[in-house]
């Protein structure tokens, strides 16, 4: 059987400096007898040897009374420490008592504050034990940041592409109706084709109340439901577009008859006034309509037609909610 060789003090110190370059050896009174080379770098311009360890470091967990005996009582446990001087670097540590009350060896590590600490103290690879994973951790932090940055840029580009696609789309995503862009295309086609049609500007009444009382989810539900009803009440060749929050425009193809137009507008309003159920709550809205026949504004551009419908809508609203008005030939 072989016995371990007796190591003298300086051999142990050299060994600890190599294996644990952030260790400190404390005497029975808690004074630092020796500090490892990397630990010394944390207090540049000071000589740690001879100082009381707990005057250099504050023991944060487990909390003690600042005495050496409290520190010794935490032997073997994970210690949370902080440099008393700026930049107040946080450290982790573990304390191993020496036999015969000869003090203790405490080994420290930079823990999670390592990224700042390496910068603050200009540490290099040589300041860490070869087995220490600090360098790998710093590598990972940088590598992951670079990868995240690349992903972030990709996300930004995809987001931009999505917005561009939406801008080019013809559909209102909430209701599935056509949007303003689609409306402009259809209007242009109708005018170019010279066919008769009616343009209806429809605003919901009482909608703001639903939003305020029951929230935006209820409001969205109401918009989807009125959109569905409007599509049901119109024919395949007609078009229903949502052009604002609760504003819609309908193009009714081939319509030139004022009486029929008035009947359709009245029917639409009646249909939209039917109560809408949302999660057990009843929502009631109504609608106002201003309408114009293309035949009443010969050769008028699209903008003029919309304005005529808007003026009629204004008149309808002035008469109270749930009404419709027709633009009159000038």
């Amino acid at each position, binding site marked *: 059987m072989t016995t371990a060789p007796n190591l003298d003090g300086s051999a142990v110190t050299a060994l600890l400096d190599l294996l644990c370059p952030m260790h400190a050896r404390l005497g029975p009174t808690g004074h630092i007898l020796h500090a490892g080379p990397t630990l010394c770098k944390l207090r540049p311009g000071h000589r740690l040897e001879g100082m009381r360890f707990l005057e250099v470091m504050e023991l944060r967990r487990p909390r003690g009374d600042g005495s050496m005996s409290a520190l010794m009582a935490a032997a073997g446990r994970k210690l949370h420490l902080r440099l008393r001087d700026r930049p107040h670097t946080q450290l982790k540590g573990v304390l191993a008592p020496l036999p015969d009350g000869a003090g203790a060896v405490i080994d420290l590590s930079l823990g999670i504050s390592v990224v700042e600490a390496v910068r603050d103290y200009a*540490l*290099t690879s040589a300041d860490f034990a070869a087995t220490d994973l600090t360098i790998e951790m*710093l590598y990972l932090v940088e590598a992951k940041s670079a990868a995240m940055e690349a992903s972030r840029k990709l996300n930004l580009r995809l987001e931009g592409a999505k917005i561009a696609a939406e801008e080019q789309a013809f559909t209102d995503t909430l209701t599935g109706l056509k949007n303003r862009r689609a409306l402009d295309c259809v209007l242009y086609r109708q005018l170019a084709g010279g066919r008769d049609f009616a343009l209806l500007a429809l605003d919901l009444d009482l909608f703001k109340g639903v939003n305020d009382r029951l929230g935006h989810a209820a409001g969205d539900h109401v918009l989807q439901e009125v959109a569905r009803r409007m599509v049901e009440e119109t024919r395949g060749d007609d078009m229903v577009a949502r052009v604002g929050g609760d504003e819609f425009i309908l193009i009714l193809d081939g319509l030139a008859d004022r009486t029929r137009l008035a009947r359709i507008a009245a029917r639409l309003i009646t249909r939209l006034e039917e109560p809408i159920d949302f999660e057990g709550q009843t929502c009631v809205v109504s609608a106002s309509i201003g309408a114009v026949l293309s035949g009443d504004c010969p050769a008028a551009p699209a903008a003029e037609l919309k304005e005529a419908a808007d003026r009629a809508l204004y008149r309808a609203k002035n008469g109270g909610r749930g009404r419709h008005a027709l633009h009159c030939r000038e």
Partner: protein
Amino acid sequence: MHGLINRAIERFTRDTYGPETWPEVARRAELGTDEFESMMTYPEGTTVRVLDALCATLGKPRADILEDIGTYLVSHPALETLRRLLRFGGVDFEEFLQSLDDLPERARLAVPDLGLPELDLHEHGAGAFSIACRGQVRGFGHVVVGLLRAMADDYGALVLIEHKGARGPDEIVEIRLLEAGFSDGRAFDLGGAVL
């Protein structure tokens, strides 16, 4: 092939040969896009098509271009992040060489689906090394040559590096380390990253 690799070839072309060359290469390679995304995976064969198109456009042999790409990856200021990540491999050039075995594993830690070529370092004593390089694309050994030359410069080491052709599935790169501390090299500050 991972987008990072295709993107590296694209950036090399843009940064080295100006803005007109890359669209020409992309057309020749029938990419259907003008830009690679770093964080996406592209079909096998894309990288080879791009390299062939690049050789045809520039009228240079593939080996030369690949070596230039390797040098570019380390020495171009736009890719400082990558140079730093490589410098984490060791405190001097020899330690860096010895870290190359871990390189694909290190890369995987950051980007799990990035398949880098496997590198196997052999030490022959007296500063002589060889690396067996096994990649998905033939010729990656030349990228390694360019990259090692630039890294040697970075560390300030004087080296001779030579591509010795293929041996079975491997490409062999020979390195002679003549003087580790030949020049000051470039600084590497552990805490110097701009995060």
